[in-house]
């Protein structure tokens, strides 16, 4: 009885969401010729812009790498502070709340904020990546720390080791490979995030995509997209190989 009532309510709410978002199959079908036209106008891609696209792609890579490495370090103290089995309640709860608050704001929003604060270019992009990634990695780190085996930690403590030594010899060896894997994974995601940072003036390849689309120069935009796809595939391939070796 209850299940039926819950089911009906879920269906009604879902129907409302569909209506509110104006979902319409007919409208989608009517749009198909326009999509085809858009794609057709991209061909053939204008390969003369490859050089500038590569410069933009390199900058995106640089923003992602610098942002991710800085965040990987900043997240270390935060990660330990927000791990339940390392810190006590008075530290743990504020640390976790802080993480959850800043993590719920996306890189793109931070980019808008930092462009306004420090001006255009890759630097606000780096700041945006650092802010969001620090919070995400700190959360992942703290969960890795909470998942460690307590046995080895007991054993190290039982030798008469000090707190830092217990951390270094009992906890770190258990979590460092996981940390490295998370950092590589975030690097992959950050390269994708960094491609659209250029839309708001925070540097990288996104600037070229947006500019060519605005200039209605679709062949050039297509060439930039090709460079982007090649870069992302190369990074994903390298990163997943590395991650497979770590864990």
């Amino acid at each position: 009885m209850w299940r039926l009532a819950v089911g009906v309510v879920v269906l009604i709410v879902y129907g409302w969401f569909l209506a509110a978002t104006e979902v319409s199959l007919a409208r989608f079908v009517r749009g198909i010729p326009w999509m085809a036209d858009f794609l057709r106008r991209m061909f053939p891609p204008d390969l003369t812009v490859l050089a500038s696209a590569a410069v933009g792609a390199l900058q995106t890579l640089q923003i992602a790498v610098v942002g991710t490495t800085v965040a990987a370090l900043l997240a270390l103290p935060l990660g330990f502070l927000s791990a339940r089995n390392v810190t006590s309640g008075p530290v743990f709860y504020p640390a976790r709340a802080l993480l959850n608050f800043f993590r719920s704001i996306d890189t793109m929003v931070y980019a808008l904020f930092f462009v306004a604060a420090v001006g255009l270019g890759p630097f606000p992009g780096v700041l945006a990546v650092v802010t969001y990634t620090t919070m995400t990695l700190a959360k992942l780190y703290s969960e890795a720390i909470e998942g460690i085996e307590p046995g080895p930690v007991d054993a190290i403590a039982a030798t008469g080791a000090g707190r830092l030594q217990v951390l270094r010899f009992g906890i770190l060896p258990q979590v460092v490979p996981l940390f490295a894997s998370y950092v590589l994974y975030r690097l992959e995601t950050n390269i994708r995030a960094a491609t659209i940072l250029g839309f708001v003036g925070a540097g990288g390849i996104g600037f070229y995509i947006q500019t060519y689309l605005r200039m209605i120069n679709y062949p050039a935009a297509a060439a930039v997209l090709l460079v982007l796809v090649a870069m992302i595939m190369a990074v994903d391939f390298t990163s997943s190989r590395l991650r497979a070796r770590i864990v």
Partner: protein
Amino acid sequence: MIRIRGLRKTFPPNTVALDGVDLDVSPGEFVMVIGQSGAGKSTLLRCLNRLIEPSAGEVSLNGTRVTGATPEGLRAVRRQMGMIFQQFNLVRRASVMENVLAGRLGHVPGVPSLFGRFPRRDRELAMASLRLVGMEDFAERRADRLSGGEQQRVAIARALAQEPKVILADEPTASLDPRLTESIMGILQRINRERGLTLIVSQHMLETALSYGTRIVGLRQGRVAFDGPPSGITPEVVQAIYEGSGS
């Protein structure tokens, strides 16, 4: 050398694990602690080096208070007590040598140790400990690549590397088959006889306890139900320790 008075441990909400234990252990004794699971064997051993904080009572080692010691004092006492665990508790991703060196953490200079630097003398001592348990050829092997029996021998080497006065062993053979049990108990017996180390070992197998211990302590529901030489164990005593206590 070890003096235990009125030791009590209550786990929330109201499980009484130790219910007033008094014991004196003299240098060179090989004490076997027996009793049903849940009788308080592990809790007793872990209260001796305060891996578990006793609720009440006193423990002292050679006149030095363990209960109520400052963090520094506790580290000093723990240095003198090696500990061996049922699950071996090696750091899996670390090498055998690194695991044994961990036994030196209470003795070596703190800051260099955090960077993995140990004095030559301590490395030699770790190697000598490995030789004593016949594991010197495995020094560079990762700990998780070893069999259970091999891991326990490394764990014994780690405890020996501490140059302790006492070794506490919490069910050291419960995860091993009978043949390995003989081998591990044989190593412990040799340490006891040749080095004069005091051993306190919890053991769920009565036969094993009787054939290696010089003294048997039987726990029942957190109290000492028997304390005497192996020859003092009669069927009536066995019944008093093992039967009718609920679990």
